[in-house]
Every structure is written in C-alpha cells, then in structure tokens.
C-alpha cells in the first residue's frame, strides 16, 4: 500500500477528480493519468488511443487504459481536437506506471475553449480527493 506522502502530485499541473492530470502550454494541453490512478490500475498492458484530428467535448472518454486486472478510462479534461497521441505506449505501456507525468503521457489536445481551464482542480484540491478515496 503506497502512502499518500510517497505519491507524486506535481504542483504545476491541473487535475480532474477522475484522476487525469493536465499540463497547459499556450493552446495545447498534455493529458495523462495520475500516479494514484496508475497505482490503482496496476501493471498497464494496453492503451487504446483516439484518432488524431478527432474532436471531443470535455467529459468524453477518449482512451482506454487496460491493466492486468482492470480497465480505466481517460476522460477529456477540456474540449478540443486530438493533436498528438503517445505512440510509444504501443510497445511500452508500462511507461504509464513508471512515469505517469513524463514519458507516460497519453494525448495532446488543441483547446477549443480556454475558459474551461478554470474548472480544473488545483493540486491541493486533487490531493484532498485522493485522501478521501483511500480505504
């Protein structure tokens, strides 16, 4: 069981209560799942990625993250078009476990409504959600 203190919560990122993280640079958002999420899922073996160019609203499910024991979903934190997907995950799905905020990123989005950024959670708010979810 990983202690909450040992888990990673990068300060500069934004979060969703469904355990996605978001890194925003100008009009582009990089999205992945948090350290808490990868730990809950266990060893990840497949990631089903969306098509580049497809558009999604905030809240849609855009990727499926299949682990040995369960399947998780990646929820769009912000509305936009898929710019890039992490094709390395086809050969190295375990990057999502070992580097969830780094090489384990999942999709990059071109944002269509920057106002939605205000609805994202700060690291403090996300930490509280994780605390509450611990058995």
């Amino acid at each position, binding site marked *: 069981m990983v202690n909450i203190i040992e888990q990673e919560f990068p300060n500069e990122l934004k979060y969703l209560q469904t355990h996605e993280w978001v890194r925003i640079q100008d009009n582009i958002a990089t999205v992945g799942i948090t350290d808490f999420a990868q730990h809950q899922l*266990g*060893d990840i073996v*497949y990631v*089903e990625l969306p098509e580049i160019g497809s558009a999604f609203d905030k809240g849609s499910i855009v990727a499926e993250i*299949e682990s040995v*024991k369960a399947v998780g979903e990646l929820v769009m934190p912000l509305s936009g078009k898929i710019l890039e997907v992490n094709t390395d995950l086809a050969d190295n799905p375990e990057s999502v476990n070992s580097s969830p905020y780094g090489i384990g990123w999942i999709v990059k989005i071109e944002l269509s409504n920057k106002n939605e950024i205000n609805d994202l959670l700060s690291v403090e708010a996300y930490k509280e959600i994780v605390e509450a979810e611990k058995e």
Partner: protein
Amino acid sequence: MVDFAGFSMPVQYDSIIKEHEAVRTNAGIFDVSHMGEFLLEGKDVIEFLQYVMINDLNLLELSKGQYSCMCYENGTVIDDLVYYEEALDRFRMIVNAGNIEKDFQWLNKQIGGKDVKISNLSSKRCRVAFQGPKSDEYLQPLVDIDLSTINRFYFAHCKLNGMPIFIARTGYTGERGFEISFDNEYAEKIWGELIKAGASPAGLGARDSLRLEATYSLYGHEISDSITPVEAGLFWLVKPKEGLDYIGKNVLIKQKTEGTDRIIVGLNLMDRGVIRDGFKIVKNGNEIGYVTSGGYSPTLKKTIGLGLIKKQYKEEGTEIEIEVRNKLLKGVVVSIPFYRNV
C-alpha cells in the same frame, strides 16, 4: 487488499507482472491459508472417497496425493480438490476457500453408515504455496528431509527449521514447487524463513495469471455447479471404476463416451486488448459461448483466455470474435495448455 471468500487478501504486493515473473524464473510464495483443510479418518475412508469422488483411488498409494472433482448426480461440480493418502484410514484433503462449508456439509451428508469421521482443520492451520524453478534449491536447506525423494504429487511430514510441516510436491502455477501446511502458531516464522530463503511474496493477481497460463481450472469459471468436468476438458478425471458406483458416474461416463454440446477451449486475441471472464464469444453474428477466464500473459506477452463454446467451433484455428465492452475483437481458438514447466 480485497475480500476473497471472507478473507482479506493481497491482489499484489508489488506488481502482478513482477510477481508472476518471479515465480517463472526464481521462486514465489503465496499465502493460501484461506483454503480449506479436512482430515478424513476411519476404516471406510477409501470406500467413501471412491463413492464421492470421480477419480479412482486404486491409482493412489501411501504418501501420494490425487486431484479430483467431487460432483453432483447430474455431473456438475461441487468442488475440485486434492486428497493425500497418509494411511489407509487417514486422508488429508485441501479444498477451495469459497467451498469449505459446502464441501464439509456435503461430505458429511454422504457418509451414511460408513466408518468415516471428518475434521475441519481449516481455521487451525495455515498454508503456503512455494513455487518456481528455484523452489527445491531454496527450500532444501530449511528442511530435514531430502526433497529430491518427493516426486510430483507425493508428500511427506517433516520439519522446517524445527517446525512440523506437511509438504507436497503439488501446485497451481505450472512450475515446480511445493504446497505446505502447518499449525497456525508457526505461520509468521515460516513465512519469514521462506522470504529469507529467497522467495518473493506473490498475491492473488499473479496466482490467477500463472494458473491461466498453465490452464488449470478455477472453480466458478471452468468448472462449477453448471459445468461438468467433461465440458471443462477434464475428461481424464472421469474414471470407469468398474463395479463401483460414484455420484455423477452415469452422466459423466455418457458425456465422456458421447461428447458434450459445449467444451472449454483456449483463446488468443488477434486484436489488441484484454479479454475477461463473462465476455461473449460470437461467430457470424451468433453467440456461441463466453469467456470463462482471460487476461494478459506475462510469459507469452499476449492476451490469453479460456472459453466455453459450442462444440462445433472447438477446432484449433477456428476464428471467432469476442465482445469486449462495445466492440467485437478478433480471436482464435488455440490448443492448451499455454505453458507448463513441471
């Protein structure tokens, strides 16, 4: 930690894949104390077991164990289990955790006038499975007998660093290894000794992925109170036992001779993804069966599974589709087992 048959048990200690690989390359230990343990004593024990078990005790001998299914009259399975002949009037039996009460009551109900007494030792003793290619090497220094004299399925009573244990060369992983039982008071010490000896702790997740690769049945999945051993491909367990009656004999011998409408087969997925139990198996738009067990195989590095399908599709190479959430993924029937190294 999850609830499993009323026990709090670890799905994994570290990573399911790492634990799985440790058992395949080194040695892993599983706490299987949740399983049931009975002692059957009395001069009629063998006659009794011949009646309630489908396997043949004439093939058994002292210091040896035998795997069997215990069936209902209609041939479906009450439990799969192993019993060990300690003496002509004394057998030790290991049963599945979820079926302890059911098995104990069923067995007692079948005794009739026979001289058989059954004791339930489940909560008095603990059990550990020590499995992997290095298991003999790591275990030998700790025990006071020569492990190389215990052949597969045989057992002994001996001492592990002075503590009395029952040790059998059996397992559920497809690797060489042992299953050990001992009184509760030695549990922590024995676990500690085995870790020091070089074994990695492994949880329920790895236990399932290992047994799936080795294609061992899991009660409630490949065998159950609605699936017979013949349907599960365990036709070899159904013994003729000439001149002896046993519960389920008529139905099972008939199934063995004539075949069954449905049968368990091995599955590979051709598309990317993971198949899991309960997923529908489809051919030409028709449902032909369902996945009984599925998952990612760390050894084969692909998704594998077992499914119960209509017999006309059981040939190796038959292309089928599996409904994974809202998509149909391509799969194929393959031969089993996927892996064995015993």
